[in-house]
């Protein structure tokens, strides 16, 4: 059991709101090993970010509540940890970077102080030593003139530089796991690639595991070892990147693949989105959550919730028909399009 660096077992996080119970994370399971990169993919509201914040106990409780499951980090339960215990892990062994670098840094403190802060808390460094280390970290993440920039305030950094600073902050204590919550969503396309490359380069050097949370399949295709696809708070498909990309099992994954715009598209070809809207997490459809939007849905799908089951070695999916002979991704699912 304790072989894996991180083991998520049937994690369930619900929010108790005035409008009802929001099942934000509802039975997520996966494992992560040292030095591995996991891509977590899903639409907005699929619970991909919330599951990460839940592991870090960064969800305000109430209204949030872990109603089931567990997350084991090096064999210790993260969700059951006391505040002072999880604090020693946060920013030290597991670190996070967030979507919007413009607002994720405190505007009134210098960059160097903010990057050095984890070292002061976790490694007992003096503030001056931490600031010296911050210069090295800034150099590591490719900020020019780090000796000068360390004394800058966040508003003097561009968006890309701020995200680099966030990465430097996350790397300060040499973490085992770096959770990147849509780290490139708020950045320019050219900067996106640089940030992703930087994270991989650092992973090569330090051997940390990465959980890359994104709605962009393109991002995870390049970098992830394994991919978890989420929908409506539930896991839909989990497997190696090759498995998920070349032999996807779940109709939702098929739909995601179809909705990626191809670079060789002409102006006549249409985009092929998944029809309909993601369900409300308060009122998740009975049976399979994806059934109302699934072009392959049969009667059983509307009644019976499919279990998340291993189909083939490392490849798991939650569809009644996954792995059935003849149940394959139709070439043309978009009406009126001839590919």
């Amino acid at each position: 059991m304790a072989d894996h660096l991180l083991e998520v077992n049937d994690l369930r996080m619900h929010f108790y709101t005035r409008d009802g119970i929001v099942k934000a994370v509802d039975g997520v399971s996966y494992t992560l090993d040292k030095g591995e990169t996991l891509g977590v993919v899903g639409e907005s509201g699929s619970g991909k970010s919330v599951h990460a914040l839940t592991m870090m106990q960064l969800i305000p409780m109430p209204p949030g509540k872990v109603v089931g499951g567990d997350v084991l980090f090096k064999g210790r339960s993260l969700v059951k940890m006391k505040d002072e215990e999880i604090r020693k892990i946060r920013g030290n062994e597991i670190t996070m970077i967030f979507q919007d670098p413009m607002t994720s840094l405190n505007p009134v403190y210098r960059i160097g102080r903010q990057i050095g802060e984890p070292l002061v808390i976790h490694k007992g460094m003096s503030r001056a030593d931490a600031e010296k280390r911050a210069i090295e970290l800034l150099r590591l993440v490719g900020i020019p003139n780090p000796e000068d920039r360390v004394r800058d305030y966040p508003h003097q950094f561009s968006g890309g530089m701020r995200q680099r600073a966030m990465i430097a902050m996350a790397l300060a204590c040499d973490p085992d796991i770096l959770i990147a919550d849509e780290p490139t969503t708020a950045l320019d396309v050219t900067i996106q690639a640089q940030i992703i490359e930087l994270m991989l380069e650092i992973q090569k050097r330090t051997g940390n595991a990465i959980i890359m949370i994104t709605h962009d399949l393109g991002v995870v295709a390049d970098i992830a070892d394994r991919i978890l696809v989420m929908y409506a708070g539930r896991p839909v498909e989990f497997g190696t990147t090759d498995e998920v990309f070349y032999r996807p099992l779940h109709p939702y994954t098929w739909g995601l693949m179809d909705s990626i715009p191809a670079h060789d598209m002409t102006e006549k070809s249409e985009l092929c989105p998944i029809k309909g809207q993601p369900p409300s997490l308060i009122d998740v459809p009975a049976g399979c959550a994806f059934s109302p939007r699934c072009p392959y849905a049969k009667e059983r799908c509307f009644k019976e919730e499919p279990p998340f089951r291993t189909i083939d070695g490392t490849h798991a999916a939650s569809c009644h028909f996954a792995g059935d002979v003849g149940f394959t991704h139709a070439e043309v699912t978009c009406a009126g399009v001839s590919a």
Partner: protein
Amino acid sequence: MFQYISRRVLQFIPVFLGVTLLLFLTANYLPGADPIQLKMGEKAIDPATKARLLKNLGLDRPWYAQYVDYLSALSPVHVVYYDGTTPEADPKVPAGALKQTGTVALIIPRIASEVPPKGVTTISPREGMTYTRGEVARWAIGGLTLEFDPPDLGTSIYNGRKVLDILGETYPYTVKLALSAIILEIIFGIGAGIVSAIKKNSFWDVLVTLSTSILVALPVFWLGIMLQYTFAIWLKDATGGAFYLPATGASGEFADWVYLILPSITLASVSTAYAARIMRSQLLEVTGQDYIRTAYAKGLPARKVLWGHAMKNALIPVVTFIGLDFGGMLSGAILTESVFNWPGVGYTIFRAIVGRDFPIVYGGVTIILFAVMFMNLLVDISYAFLDPRIRFGGGES
């Protein structure tokens, strides 16, 4: 930083001219009894006497000329051109004094006939009126002479005392009251706001929210009268009569600060309530920001996130409010000072307006103007220290 401050000081000039010009304009059209009549009481005045008095006070001149007189007296520097002619002998001007021969222009150059000897020179711009010039220093530059004098705000119509002396006596009372009120506001306003935000929706939060709503709605004079009634009359024996005594503490029976308690509570009441509300809403807003989540994700304990990361951001608008409010208090609290018979500058100006004692009104407003502008400058400087985005002029991306 230096550029920032000097720009702000320069901005003061148009504000000062605008406010004082407006003041002279409105005072000129203020209806009611004329100051001479008020000075003389019920007696009928001989028209010739009245004309002479008006002339001596400079009130016979049009309001814009009076305005220039005021600026001239206030200005510590004068550029004077002495034309070298011998002044005609004027029996009304004391011996050795110079008679002004030119007109007074806006930058206050004065033209006089000959360069006076070093030291104090008395000049008489008008019949019956003498000024000393060059009291502090006198420098000759080319054909012009720079004369330095202490600023003058004229004399009271009512009792002939120097306005600066009158304000010098009353202003310390206003400062004392403002300081004690602002201390109350800082302690209780910020304190209540923090408690209210941290313990959101608790009993304490409800208590703070409710009591601040009530305080904001209470008229200041009513609160002052009620406090007086409660502590000075109803609880006279319990408090040893401490609050029954005159506000100036003239009896000397109690320490000076005792007399400050009720007026400063009264003066601070409304702004303390506002400060608490601003503090609460700012802290709640800041704790929802992304960088607070970042701070938690670093492994900081809640206490350090609050005092280290949230507070400095949340305090910025509160500091601004309290600073500007202090500027307001320094301009004299007419209601509080009147209710407590507090001999501060607000009450003094109020009485001067009623008595049409214009030099005191002009002088009082001038002092207040300087105090408020100075406080605003301090607020802006402190703002720059709290918020680095201001410090660099906001030019960067």
